[in-house]
């Protein structure tokens, strides 16, 4: 395994998996105090970039979206894709992010074929919002086959157990 660590996120990447932690495109925010890097733009408002952690047991393409657009279309039946997406601190304390602590392990009933932002035939997805260490996150998971989700979940939860947020 290889340890992937950046921006207060880390995960063990198993042999043959792809993993990446990057800062998504900065957005204007009035929030301060985040552990994420901030940049001041020309107008004086704060441009904040928050990290995204992605894991996949298949080869991720060079160009893809934060939630796997461009990658999930390449998935086979036994493939899975994980995106751990951090929101700005203005989301802390809202009802959506009220659950405290990481939501894994995930159970089979967490997934549904209609829980994908863009349903693709045969795939299943799950989405969980939560807060951890004062940081609001969305965990978004896509399974290559909804019908085979029980077999894929073991790999998924094993990978999620290695994810840490500090």
């Amino acid at each position, binding site marked *: 395994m*290889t340890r*992937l660590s950046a921006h207060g996120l880390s995960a063990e990447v198993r042999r*043959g998996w792809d993993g*990446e932690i990057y800062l998504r495109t900065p957005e204007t925010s009035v929030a301060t105090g985040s552990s994420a890097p901030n940049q001041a733009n020309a107008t004086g408002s704060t441009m904040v970039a928050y990290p995204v952690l992605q894991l996949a047991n298949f080869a991720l*393409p*060079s160009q893809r979206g934060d*939630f796997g657009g461009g990658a*999930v279309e390449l998935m086979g039946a036994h493939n899975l894709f994980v995106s751990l997406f951090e929101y700005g601190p203005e989301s802390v304390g809202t009802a959506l992010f009220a659950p405290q602590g990481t939501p894994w392990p995930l159970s089979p009933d967490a997934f549904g074929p*209609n829980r994908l932002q863009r349903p693709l035939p*045969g795939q299943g997805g799950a989405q969980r919002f939560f807060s951890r260490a004062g940081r609001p996150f969305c965990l978004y998971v896509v399974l290559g086959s909804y019908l085979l989700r029980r077999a894929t979940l073991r790999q998924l939860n094993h990978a999620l157990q290695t994810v840490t947020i500090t």
Partner: protein
Amino acid sequence: MMVLVVLLGVVVALLAVLVVGLLRTHAEILRRLHELGAGVYDDSAPAGPVALSAPGAAPLRTQPGVAEPRTSETSAFDLSGTTPDGATAVIGVVDRPHTTLLAFLSSGCTTCRGFWDAFADGEANELPGLDTHLVVVTKGPQNESMSKVAELARDRVRTVMSSQAWADYGVPVSPYFVLADGRTGRVLGEGSGTTWAQVAGLLEQACADAGLDPAGGRRTRALGPNGPAREQRADEELARAGIGPGHPSLYGQTTLDDQGPDDLIEPVEPVVNGSDGADAG
């Protein structure tokens, strides 16, 4: 008597010239053989395979000054490093159902520039091997300019900056290419070249030597097995069968033993912060 001595002297002189000529020719032959790695005193020296050698390939030696690939079979390694846009990345190479072509390039070498341009122009969209994926590997940010690499990579090819990968694969020089088989975790072939066409030809040879069908396993990245063309063809076939968007059979609910009604009606949870929602998955 005097005439006989003179004649004998002339004959001896001619023979001496002939022997010297033969010795010179023999020395030249030995020198050439030595350069080719087949000299009479080369038995103890390692036989260096030529560029992109494969196990079983004829042992040859590269020209003086050109690095020789390893002589023993080599393991493949996953890649760990930084992307040109600053992300921390791990890219799997082993335990994969496909082959991976690792292109070890640098931003400074003139020969590498041709490969950067070839990849950016899509010349490497078709790769020999088993659904071969291309990954460009440069040295880490401590040895390379991230902005220069980002400019050369142009987002079309997965690129990782990792000095560790150069050390793991024992890369002697750039440009250098390694074809790794994810199923076996072994390197199928490796070496260098000056043009993409040359390297592509050597790759096909390495694939053939490894028992892979270069043409049959060819992968088109632009229109891959899951590309738009295939999606459109599948949509057309489904439409002919009367199956359109939202058709229940697409979700297989009649065959799921543990799926409750909520699974089919539960909406996707709301997305906050405007465009922060899932984009396409």
